[in-house]
Structure formats: C-alpha cells, structure tokens
C-alpha cells in the first residue's frame, strides 16, 4: 500500500470521523476498504453525509446474525460511480441492532437501489426498516411461517 494509494482512504476516514463525531468507529482495513460502525440513531445522518462525500453506489446490503453476542448487524456496502478516486473503495457502513427487536430507519431515500436489498434483509433476518415504502416478503414462499431463515435459530443438518 503506497503512500499515494492509501491517502484517499485515510482522507475519507478522517472526514467521516470529523463529521460523525465520537459515536462512530472508523477504520481503514486495507487499500480500498474502509469500515464505519454507527449506532442506529446515527445511521440516517451517516448515510446522507457519505452520499454527499461521493458514495452514490450502494452495492450490497447484508445482515449478519451474531447470536452469541445478541446483536444483528446490517452492513451497507458503498462505492462510487461519479468520483474517480473513490471507484476502487468499498466502504462498509455497519449498523448494530439489538437481536430481540432489530429496527432501524430505512435508507431508501438516500440510495434508491437499497429498496430490494432491505426487503431481503427484512425477510431473512426480521429487521424492521422504518419508513420503507414496501416492506414485504420478496423471496420466500407465500405461506412461510417459520423464523427468519438466515438467523442461526433455523438449523440445516450438517453434512458429515
């Protein structure tokens, strides 16, 4: 990681830390990978700030069920279409939610592309996205009545 390559990641990390204050943890993992952890109250502001910085491409949204730590993490992966110096960067915006009642404001007003991604996280993990325009099942069968399947509660028998 040469000095000029790592400069943009460190710059972004510094700007984000400055804008969002002490509630966030910002880390540069390696060249092209920055991670930002925010509590749910700051998720919306963080998203708007990152979009203004140039992160206008939401490439994926993933839920992760950390059952032993009693939390569900929703990770937004962001990159950029318009800023040439940011197209190689993936910034992970991680929002930590309580496992019993995971709920956070929707970010569809910031990036329209996360509409379907958040619907999938809703049905697979049970996360409630407040204010989502159409929070319904997307992939599961019509009469699914079990727990959200990607949670660790639903077990698939392991092969030997």
């Amino acid at each position: 990681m040469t000095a000029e390559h790592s400069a943009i990641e460190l710059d972004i990390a510094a700007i984000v830390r400055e804008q969002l204050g002490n509630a966030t943890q910002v880390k540069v993992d390696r060249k092209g990978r920055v991670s930002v952890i925010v509590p749910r109250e700051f998720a919306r502001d963080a998203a708007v700030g990152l979009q203004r910085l140039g992160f206008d491409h939401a490439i994926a949204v993933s839920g992760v069920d950390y059952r032993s730590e009693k939390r569900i993490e929703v990770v937004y992966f962001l990159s950029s279409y318009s800023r040439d110096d940011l197209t190689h960067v993936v910034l992970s915006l991680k929002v930590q939610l309580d496992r019993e009642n995971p709920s956070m404001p929707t970010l569809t007003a910031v990036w329209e592309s996360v509409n379907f991604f958040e619907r999938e996280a809703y049905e697979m993990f049970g996360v409630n996205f407040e204010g989502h325009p159409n929070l319904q099942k997307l992939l599961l069968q019509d009469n699914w009545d079990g727990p959200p399947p990607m949670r660790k509660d639903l077990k698939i028998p392991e092969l030997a």
Partner: protein
Amino acid sequence: MRLAPGVWVGSLRDLIERVFGAPPLKQLVNWGRIYSLWPVHLMTACCGAEFGAMMGPRYDPERFGMQAATGSLRQSDVLIIEGTVTKKMAKRVKVVWEQMPNPKYAIAMGDCACSGGLFHDSYSIVNEVQKVIPIDVYVPGCPPRPEALLNAVIKLREKIRREEVYSK
C-alpha cells in the same frame, strides 16, 4: 356389449376408440404423436442452459419433431422440468401441467428434479417433483449433457410407441 356373436352395439365414440385403438391405426396415431412433441420450456434453474443448448443447432431436436415451441401451453405435449422446483413454484408447476391437453408427458431433468440434488437440504425446495406431477422419464445429471436429454426424448418416444391411444 355383445348381443350375439359378431354383433356389437355401442356409441359412436366407443366405435372410434375401438378403431383407432387397435393396430394398424394405433401405430399411425402413436407415430404422429412421437414426431410432434412440442416442449414447454419450464426453465427453473441451471438445467435450462443445457436445455437451451439442446435446442440449438449442434444437437438439433427438430429432426425428432421437437420444435422450439414458444407458443402457448395449450398446444404443448411434453413438460420438461429443468431443475429445482421450489415450494413457491410448485403450485404454479401444477397449474402449468393442468393446462396442457391430453396426452401429455413429463420429463424430470436434472438431479434437483429427480431427488433434490445439490440443494436437497434447503428450506425452500420440493425434493422430488414426482410429488407434484407424474413423471414419465427421469434424467439424472447436474446438469445432464444435451446428449443425455436427447436420449431421454428417445426413451419417451419408445414409451409412447408402446402406449394405448386412449388411456382411461
């Protein structure tokens, strides 16, 4: 119904069934059926790519009368289930099957349709398509080569050739 030796009484439909259900007309009807099997392209999952390759110029199913039928279900004969049938789709597979007019046949293509395959422990699939509709020919493979699918079509034709014209 027989009144006396040599006399047979029945409706016109029964007469037609007796005439066409016996050789040599039976052979003619079955020959017509096997040379015009129009498939329904139920491209469920991955096997659809090999079905597409089979309909291509190298394997040429048209010499067997199997046209690249993109027409409606109401004028198709054989339903080829290519791949995994999920629980969400199972109801619709049944709807497709019921829309096809008789005589109709079904080929289960791929390991997923035969028995669950790679995804047998998934929470959202139906492991055996036999539970949804009756199957005539099974083609194992993941995915089966186009030659294997052509072989299945040939086996189906042999089965049709032996069949009764009017089945109760």
